[in-house]
């Protein structure tokens, strides 16, 4: 027994090493999120004639560690829109809970409407809301470390797809991709939907195929990706979300010819 009561119940330094108190921020100014911790990689989406297709893999990485392999990063909202999250997973969970509350508040306002679907928040409204939220958090220097894609319909019932990031920057385009997808998937998607007119000619099947093809390319070349993914199709009939898809028809033949990496000796 140590003679200092202050020491009772404490971990011993000679067993555990000195405690690193630096994270306690005992001095210096307060810090908010400075960097993402557990992260999700790309989210990709493309518009087509009657709606939008969105996909994201089911991996949450901790640095280079594939930490969680069953993480759903596409979330339906009011069964009329889909929100896809890239970036920090805990911030995504915060946003998901926030959106649940928003959806409940929204149902309060319209529970007695004759036709609630007509006046409920559509994807454009939701994107506007999220952009205000993200921008406010960046103003507070406490950003939500995500890039978010929102898919659904706007007030004139046209397919809607837009993005907002941790700084509150918003933009829209016939196809969108966050993270690695902006480099690898976006050029492929733009081949099929360079303009709104192109997108309006795409069929659902074509759009789904393009997205699946992009997910494959991303799995091949993005080290923080997974071959299990979620895919959502938003149409006027609602959201069809499947959360446990497997990448099909992978070909690793090309990998055999790549030299200079890994354990190869030649």
């Amino acid at each position, binding site marked *: 027994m140590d003679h200092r009561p202050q020491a009772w119940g404490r971990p011993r330094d000679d067993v555990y090493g000195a405690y690193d108190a630096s994270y306690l921020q005992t001095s210096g100014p307060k810090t908010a999120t400075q960097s993402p911790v557990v992260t999700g990689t790309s989210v990709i989406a493309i518009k087509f004639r009657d709606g939008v297709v969105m996909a994201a893999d089911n991996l*949450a990485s901790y640095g280079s560690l594939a930490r*969680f392999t*069953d*993480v*759903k*990063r596409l979330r339906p909202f009011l069964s009329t829109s889909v929100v896809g999250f890239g970036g920090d*997973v805990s911030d*995504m*969970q*915060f946003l*998901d*809970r926030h959106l*649940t*509350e928003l959806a*409940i*508040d929204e*149902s*309060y306002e319209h*529970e*007695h409407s004759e036709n609630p679907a007509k006046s409920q928040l559509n994807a454009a409204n939701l994107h506007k809301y999220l952009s205000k939220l993200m921008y406010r958090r960046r103003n507070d220097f406490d950003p939500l470390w995500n890039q978010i894609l929102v898919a659904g319909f706007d007030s004139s019932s046209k397919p809607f797809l837009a993005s907002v990031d941790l700084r509150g920057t918003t933009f829209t385009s016939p196809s969108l991709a966050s993270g690695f997808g902006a480099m690898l998937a976006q050029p492929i998607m733009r081949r099929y939907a360079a303009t709104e007119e192109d997108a309006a000619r795409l069929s659902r099947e074509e759009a789904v195929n393009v997205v699946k093809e992009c997910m494959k390319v991303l799995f091949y070349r993005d080290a923080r990706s997974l071959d299990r993914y979620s895919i959502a199709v938003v149409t006027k009939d609602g959201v069809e979300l499947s959360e446990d898809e497997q990448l099909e028809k992978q070909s690793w033949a090309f990998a055999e010819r790549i030299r200079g990496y890994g354990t190869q000796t030649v």
Partner: protein
Amino acid sequence: MTSIGTGYDLANSIFSPDGRNFQVEYAVKAVENGGTSIGIRCKDGVVLAVEKIVTSKLLKPNANKRIATVDRHLGVVYSGMIPDGRHFIDRARDEARAWRDTFKTPISTADLASRMGGYMQAYTLYQSVRPFGITAIIGGFDSTDEPRVDGEVGTGPSCGAGGKVAGKTHGGPFLYMIEPSGLYWGYYGAATGKGRQAAKAELEKLDLGGPGGPSLTLEEAVKEAARIIYVAHDDSKDKEFELEMTWISGPDGPTKGLHQEVPKALREEAERLAKKAQEDDEDDEEEDVEGKEKMEE
């Protein structure tokens, strides 16, 4: 009301020498002037109903709803001062949201009743406020599934530590009624407002609190609720009224665990039956009277 004029009834939170808070009792009077509200807890859910007196022909029919949803699985109906009821619901919704913020899961019916009971009670404690002029009935269906955590991203382990326990049951239908004093009880069937006496008498005839639990199904309860409101209305026949009804079933029932308005077709059917039952009753009475007269002859 023997103590009117003695001065103990002029401010809230004042005890009279015999230990009463008159302002709370007067608030109950405001409730007793309001349209009748009832709630029925049955086998597979809860039904709420309210009698809305049509005060003006110019009101838009069926546009002004009185039963409100709190979170997704709870319904609140009230009798008394309607603006106070709106305030009550705003607060109930805030409580439900605060619960979710803290516990990441929907609030249970019992917990909401407790929170709101506390809130109402606080309005009997100070001279600077007045009690609520309402009695509220809270009905809800607490999820029978393993409660999900808001924002969870995966499904978690299916068994073992942190996993699911086989055979464990959760939730079910619940019904509470809160009075202006903040007092609340759980009920099998609850009634308040102008026609509460008649309504209570009818509720007691239903098999709600038997040892094997209520045998009444939701659909039957809807029809009973409509009938009871019609019976309770009897006394103020001169004024027209609208019947508003909502229900909450379990995840396998018609509302899938949500608090919703009773579908129009079912409500109209229930109203038709209620009117028919009433007419039959009246006929019986007339026959009774005739019978008596004959006897006297």
